[in-house]
């Protein structure tokens, strides 16, 4: 990474003086990055964002922005845009007035306010709605106004706290694409909070996984998916098969599970943080093995339990007889329909497709 644009150092924040909502966070963000905070409810995402925005002050630790210490700078003196989940538009002002507000606060001259506001409204595709009031807009349109308002004054960073949370699925996907387009066009650093992992995967340059006020892992989406550092990340992101391991032999390339024995693996977490360790195999890495097909490195017979049809694909869940191990296998929609409801089937995966967390 190049020199960090935003840097959080050992940031701690407690609301009640006992439990820490944010518990020692270190994070560097490069200029122009699209960073997503992902984590379960109450993990400290919003609190961290609010400290970046200046609405909360850290109990200890520091926040740097573009080389300046902003830890204790009041929010209105930072140059940071915020988009709230409920939009927080000003209902008594027209769309144009809402968007012009940050420019008025900066005492920009009227002509510039006019042109910049028009430009920002065009960016989010709301040119024709400038004279309406927020209550006369749909949720998606209100979201765009909030975006335009947060971008129009060219802030150093745009913070977005679950901005699409209140939208229905189709609109949300549409807005995800829009947001990415805006990010590309404007080139602004964005920090985005969500607890929708697929949203985090599709939009982000890097994802920060929060857990209990701490950062569990930071990385590109694909890194988190393929090389999670902890079981929590492995389970939180994507669908997964996770096996508890009783022993690990990285040198010889195998691991052992108490009831199903040795499993061949090629990839190991170089710096494991947990003991015991776990084997992660993504459901799409498992293949069903018709009779006569050469088995891959690891193969097991499983008893079909449930088949979930998603329409475009299916997931078969089965257990290895005589053990408590159940496996999720992703199959094509067609294959899913052709599978028998119950019975035994052979499945397997190759050593390169497992990862020892």
């Amino acid at each position, binding site marked *: 990474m190049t020199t960090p644009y935003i840097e959080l150092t050992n940031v701690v924040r407690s609301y009640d003086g006992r439990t820490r909502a944010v518990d020692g966070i270190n994070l560097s963000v490069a200029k122009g990055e699209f960073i997503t905070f992902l984590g379960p409810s109450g993990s400290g995402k919003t609190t961290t964002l609010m400290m970046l925005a*200046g*609405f909360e002050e850290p109990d200890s630790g520091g926040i740097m922005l573009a080389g300046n210490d902003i830890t204790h700078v009041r929010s209105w003196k*930072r140059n940071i845009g915020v988009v709230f989940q409920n939009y927080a538009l000003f*209902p008594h002002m027209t769309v144009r007035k809402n968007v012009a*507000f940050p420019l008025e606060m900066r005492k920009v001259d009227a002509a510039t306010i006019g042109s910049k506001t028009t430009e920002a409204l065009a960016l989010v595709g709301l040119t024709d709605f400038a004279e309406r009031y927020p209550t006369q807009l749909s949720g998606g349109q209100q979201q765009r106004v909030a975006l335009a308002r947060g971008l129009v004054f060219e802030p150093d960073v745009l913070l977005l706290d679950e901005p699409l949370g209140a939208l229905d699925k189709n609109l949300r996907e549409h807005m995800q694409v829009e947001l990415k387009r805006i990010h590309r066009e404007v080139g602004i650093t964005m920090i985005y909070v969500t607890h929708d992992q697929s949203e985090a995967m599709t939009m982000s340059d890097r994802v920060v996984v929060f857990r209990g006020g701490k950062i569990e892992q930071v990385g590109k989406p694909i890194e988190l998916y393929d090389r999670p550092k902890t079981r929590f990340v492995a389970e939180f992101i994507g669908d997964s098969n996770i096996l508890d391991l009783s022993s690990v032999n990285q040198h010889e390339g195998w691991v052992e599970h108490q009831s199903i024995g040795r499993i061949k693996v090629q990839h190991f977490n170089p710096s494991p943080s947990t003991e015991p360790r776990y084997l992660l195999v993504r459901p799409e890495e498992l293949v069903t093995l018709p009779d006569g097909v050469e088995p891959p490195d690891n193969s097991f017979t499983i008893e079909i339990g449930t088949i979930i049809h998603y329409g475009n694909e299916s997931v078969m869940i089965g257990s290895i007889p005589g053990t408590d191990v159940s496996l999720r296998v992703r199959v094509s929609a067609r294959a899913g329909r052709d599978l028998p409801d119950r019975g035994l089937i052979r499945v397997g995966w190759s050593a390169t497709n497992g990862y020892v967390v």
Partner: protein
Amino acid sequence: MIAWESKAAKPYLLMAPVVAVIAVCFLLPILNVLFLSFTEPTVSLHNYARIFSVPLYLRVLANTFKNAALVTVICLVLAYPLAYTLVRRGPVIAGILLAAVAIPFWTGFLVRTFSWLVIFGAEGPVAGVMRWAGFEPPRMLFTTFAALWGMTHILLPYMVMALYGVMKRINMQQIKAAESLGATPVIAFWRVFVPQSLPGVINGCVLVFTMCLGFYVTPVLLGTPTDMMIAQLIGQQVQELLAWGFAAALSVMLMICTFAILAIYDRFFGLQRLWG
């Protein structure tokens, strides 16, 4: 067809008792007053002419408006910060403050008025404290000050409730949003909070002002005849002079003024909003 008609008529039938009560207890007396104002002692417009030809009566009318306006402004100035605190503070503080506003509200206003008689009395606690501090207490009872004070005390809860009702619907995240957009807390308050609280301000003012216009007991008990308000004048005309016709004309004037204010309010804001 008939079935349909009876169906449609039913809801109105349900209103019949209320309509009857209103007609008997409310409309009839008003009509009676109207009638009296034109017929007592003789059939003429004389009673109305008298209001506008005698300077004293015009002064009372002006005084009524002046006092009502003063009380309204004082209530607003006192209630606004209080209501603002109610919405900005946590539920515990808000609860205590709301109770502090509501409990006197439930105490009869006669009781509250009499309590001021005691407090402001020549031997009352206020005078006592002043003497203790070495002042000769000024006369407090039976002054304009006492009348305004008493009315403010009684009408303040209406203003607080009107403001609070509107303020608690304002999304406080907007203030944060304004601050993130570069507004200082003071500017955010004036540009974002105050404009959205205006409906409450208008509601509260109309409510307090119209109630104040017809206020009787408190100004009579605490105020001075030299600073008479219209309700007091009406009472005097009836009780002391038995001038029923003139009192009725004054009442009609008061009613017209009140209706005019409500009509203007209705024209711009819609009367149903007055009740939250």
